[in-house]
């Protein structure tokens, strides 16, 4: 029987309640969930934990989402990790900026959990 190692997803969001909700349905899909409530801790987790995907909020304490994204994309260790932006902002300009900076998906809150699961699976090649 194939012994598959569960993929790690890092959620960087300042709302712990949201992280818990996301973690519940992503764990149910077989993923291991790591979390960070601020930008700097998020960056350090991404470097330390060898994560497979990052779900990133744009409005964060200790370094906003764009600071985190920029940092991740400039580092050799983390620049290949796919990033999904999850934000409450409606600004079209932010979406364009996120894609330009290397994010692979952009979702607006309140998002559809099924769509997020599908996007995660697509980016991790689990479909």
């Amino acid at each position, binding site marked *: 029987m194939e012994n598959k190692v569960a993929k790690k997803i890092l959620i960087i969001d300042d*709302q712990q*309640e*949201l992280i818990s*909700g*996301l973690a*519940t*349905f992503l764990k*149910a899909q077989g993923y291991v969930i790591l979390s960070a409530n601020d930008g700097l801790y998020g960056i350090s987790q991404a470097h330390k934990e060898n994560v497979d995907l990052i779900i990133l909020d744009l*409005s964060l304490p200790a370094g906003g989402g764009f600071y985190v994204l920029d940092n991740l994309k400039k580092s050799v260790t983390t620049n290949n990790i796919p990033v999904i932006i999850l934000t*409450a*902002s*409606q600004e*079209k300009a932010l979406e364009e900026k996120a894609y330009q900076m290397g994010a692979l998906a952009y979702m*607006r*809150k*309140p*998002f559809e*959990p*099924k769509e997020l699961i599908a996007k995660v699976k697509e980016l991790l090649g689990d479909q």
Partner: protein
Amino acid sequence: MRVKKAGNNIERDFKLVFQELKENPYRKFNLAFSLMSVIPLLVFLYILAAKLFTFHILVGNIGLIILICILISVCGFCLGYSIIKNALNRVIFYAIKAKRSDELKSTFVASVSHELKNPLSVIKTNLFNLMEGLLGKIEDEQKKAIQLLYGVVERMGRLINELLDLHKIEAGLIGLTRKLCNLPQILEGQVKELEGVLNKKQVKLAKEILSKDLFVWADEDRLQQVVNNLLSNAIKYTPEGGSVTLRAYFIEGFVRLEFIDSAESIPQDKIEKIFDKFQRLDAAKEGTGLGLAITRDIVESHKGKIWVEPLIGKGNKFIVVLPCDLRSSKR
């Protein structure tokens, strides 16, 4: 002609501002310029006359008159300078006030976005987890109640988005990124997006693109929003098995879009209010009552017009007229 019209608009806007300020700053400007320019002009003319008619200008009564004139002109200049400076200060004050007000509006939008959407995401995520049985087994009755709540949360999300959209448009916080938009392509895209709803309701859609090269100089995202709002409205109010017609063509320098449904005709007394906020024809139909208000604001921000004509018997025709792109009208 167009310049004159724009000038008239600016004059009208100024009049409104003056009414609000309860004063006309131009009066002060006129006074200041009179003081600063007319009096020195009189002195100059007097000196010129003295030179031409060779009377001594700085001697006796004439000299005294000249000195008084010079004194008056210096006072006039100082007074004029102070009036203009005050008027400019007031202009700058109002400009700063307007800028601060815009900044406050932007902050408000950002705060509402963050403070309402984040908790809504938490509620939605947890309801999803409950519904899927990820937090323990639930009975059918409980599942039904959760599904109901989930639908309400989804509607709240839409309402927040539409309210923010409307606020941004009305407060002038949305900058239109205009480009040459291929209208048939946009129509095609939106029809595809609504294909699911069309099939579900078995509504037949007739697409009539009657002119070639239909281009509009517009913000593509906003134009898509207009088409989507009107087309989804037409489908929503059309009974199952009914038909919707989407027509587009050039007419005298304008692009005309028609969305014809086969719903009940809108009563005359509701025609006037249909584009107002929170106006809904049928409360039983899902919606926020903001879609048409947003649509009208977008159309008007593109210098277009939108109105509805109830058809005799059954159905309604929503008409959007947009100025077409100058390059395409030359063809």
